[in-house]
C-alpha cells in the first residue's frame, strides 16, 4: 500500500515537472544576464527592455491583439445567434444529429485541413476582390471560422440548461421577440456568452496553423514571430516574450476560472429556484 502511494507520488510529481519545468526554464533564461549558455550570470531585465524597443515584436503583439479582439467580437455575436437559432427554432427532431455534426466538425477537424481549405477559398475569392489578399482581414475571417463553433457549443449548452419554460413564461406575459431576447434570454445566457468569448479569445491568441496559412507579409502575429525567430536562434528576448505570453495566459485562465465559478454558483441558485 505504501509502495503504491509512493509510486503515485512519483508519477504525479514527475508529470508536473515534465509539464512545468520547461516553462520555468524559459522564465529563468529570460532574466539571466547572458546571451548564450546555461549558467546563471545574474539577474537582469534587459531582455524585457529590448523586447519593448523591438518594433517588429510590438507590431506582432498589436496584430495579435487586433486579430483576437475583432475575431472574438464577431464570432461571439454570430456563434450566439447560431446557438439560439439551432436550439430555439422548432426544427424537426431528426435535424438535431445533423446540427450536432455541423457544430462539432470545426472543433474536431485538424487545423491544418481547415487552413488549407481557407487558402483555396481565399485564392478563389481573390479573383473577384483584392480584399482577400493574405493579411489581417483574411486572418480574421479564418479565426472567426473556427471560433464560431466553439462559441456556439458553449452557448448552446447554456441554452439547454436554462430551458425553454422561462421564455415561454415571458411570451405568455406579452413579450415580443426583441423584448424577450433583451430582457430574458440574453441576460440568462450572458455567463455562457462570456465563457464562449473567452474561449474564442484564447484560441485566437495562440493560434498558429490558421494564421500561418492566411497571413500576409504585414500581418505577423506573436506565434508566427516566435516560430520564425526560434528557427534562426533562440535569443533571451524570445524567452522574455514567451514568459510574458505565459503570464498573460495564466491571468486569462484565472479570470475564466473565476467567471465559471460565478456561473456555477448562479446555476446552483437557479436549480434551487426550480
Amino acid at each position, binding site marked *: 500500500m505504501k509502495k503504491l502511494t509512493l509510486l503515485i507520488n512519483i508519477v504525479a510529481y514527475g508529470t508536473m515537472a515534465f509539464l512545468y519545468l520547461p516553462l520555468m526554464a524559459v522564465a529563468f533564461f529570460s532574466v539571466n544576464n547572458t546571451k548564450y549558455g546555461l549558467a546563471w550570470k545574474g539577474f537582469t531585465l534587459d531582455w524585457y527592455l529590448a523586447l519593448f524597443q523591438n518594433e517588429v515584436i510590438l507590431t506582432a503583439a498589436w496584430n495579435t491583439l487586433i486579430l483576437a479582439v475583432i475575431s472574438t467580437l464577431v464570432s461571439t455575436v454570430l456563434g450566439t445567434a447560431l446557438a439560439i437559432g439551432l436550439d430555439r427554432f422548432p426544427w424537426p427532431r431528426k435535424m438535431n444529429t445533423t446540427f450536432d455534426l455541423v457544430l462539432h466538425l470545426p472543433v474536431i477537424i485538424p487545423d491544418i485541413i481547415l487552413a488549407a481549405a481557407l487558402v483555396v477559398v481565399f485564392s478563389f475569392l481573390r479573383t473577384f476582390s483584392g480584399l482577400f489578399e493574405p493579411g489581417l482581414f483574411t486572418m480574421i475571417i479564418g479565426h472567426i471560422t473556427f471560433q464560431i463553433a466553439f462559441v456556439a457549443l458553449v452557448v448552446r449548452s447554456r441554452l439547454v440548461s436554462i430551458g425553454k*419554460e*422561462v421564455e*415561454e*413564461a*415571458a*411570451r*405568455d*406575459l*406579452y*413579450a*415580443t421577440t426583441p*423584448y424577450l431576447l433583451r*430582457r*430574458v434570454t440574453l*441576460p*440568462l445566457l450572458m455567463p455562457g456568452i462570456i465563457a464562449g468569448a473567452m474561449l474564442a479569445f484564447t484560441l485566437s491568441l495562440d493560434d498558429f496553423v490558421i494564421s500561418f496559412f492566411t497571413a500576409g507579409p504585414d500581418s505577423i502575429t506573436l506565434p508566427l514571430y516566435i516560430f520564425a525567430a526560434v528557427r534562426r536562434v533562440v535569443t533571451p528576448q524570445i524567452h522574455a516574450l514567451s514568459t510574458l505570453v505565459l503570464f498573460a495566459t495564466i491571468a486569462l485562465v484565472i479570470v475564466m476560472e473565476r467567471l465559471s465559478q460565478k456561473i456555477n454558483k*448562479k446555476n446552483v*441558485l*437557479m436549480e*434551487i*429556484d*426550480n
Partner: protein
Amino acid sequence: MTTQGMGLHLQGIHKTYGKTAAVNNISIEIRSGEFFTLLGPSGCGKTTLLRMIAGMELQDSGRIILDGRDITRLPAIKRQINTVFQSYALFPHLNIFENIAFGLRSRKLPENEINQRVAQSMDMLELGNMKNRFPHQLSGGQNQRVALARALINEPKVLLLDEPMSALDAKLRAQVQVELRRLQQKLHQTFILVTHDQDEALVVSDRVAVMREGQIIQFGTPEQVYDAPKNKFVAEFLGAANLIPGRFENGLFHTDIGSFVLSKPPAWNQGLVAIRPEWITVSETQPAQNGIRAKVSEIIYRGTSRDLWFEPGRIRVRSSTYKHFSIGDEAWLEFAPSELVVLDE
C-alpha cells in the same frame, strides 16, 4: 354581448404527436368566472390541452373561442390568457417586483401605473416586503404566490394553472388549495387548473373534467363526478371504490357475495357496480334489503377513520362511527340501492 357567448369554448380540439392522439377531438364550454379543473393521470393530454389554450402549442384542428371571439390562430402574446407554470418559471435574474411587473412592462404601461398595480398585487398575495428579493431567496410557497401575482396582475380573462401545487409539501398544498379557491371566488375570474391530484380537483373546482388518453371521460361538478362515476376508471381515479362484478337478471343484480336491488336498471346484462367505502353501513342486525353477512379480514387505521376489509369479496368499508372491530368479527353490511352506482364498462 349576451352572457351566453361568454367564457372559453373549445370546439373539436385535436392534436396528434406522431401517431398517437394527445388530445382527441375535445369540445367543452368553460363558463366565465368558473373554476374548472382538468383531472387525469400523467400523459392523458391535459397539459397539452392547457398549452393549446395558452397559445404555446397549435392544435391540428378545432377552434378556441374566448368571449365570443375566435382566438384559434392568435399567438400567446395576443391572448388575454396567462399561465402559472408547474415549476413557476420565474425569471431568476429579476427581482420579485420585476418578475411581477413583467407583463405590464412588456405592454409599456406607464411607470406609476406599474408601481401601483404591483404594490396592489403583492398586497393581495401577501408578499409583503419581498419586492427586492430574488426568486432563489424565497420559499416554494412564496414563489408560487409570485407566479400567481405575475399572471393575475395582467387581469387575464382566463388564468391557466399547470399543476401549480406539485412542488409543495402535502400540508402546504392543502392550505394553498383552499386559498386558491378563495382567491378565485373573490376575483370571480375564470381559472383552469390542470392536476393529477383528485383531492385538489374536488376541493377547488366548480366543475371537473376527468381525462384519459386524450379524451374527456366525465364532466360535471365534483359531487356529480364523485357520487356518480361513469365508469371503472373514474370510480377508481377519484377516491376509493369497491367494484362488484355481476349479472343483472329479473330486476336483481346477482354477484358472488349476494343479490342486490339497484335504484335503476343498468343498460347491460353483465357488468360492474361501484360503492364507495364510506357509503356502506355496518350494523349488528340484518338490514331490510341489500345486506350481506361478512367477516373482518384486515383493519387499517387512518387517524380520522378506519378502513375495514371484509370477506367475502374484499369489500372495503370506511367509517368513523362504528364500534371497534377486531379481525374475525362478523357483521352485516348494507349496500343501500341509492349508493350502488352502475358503471358503463
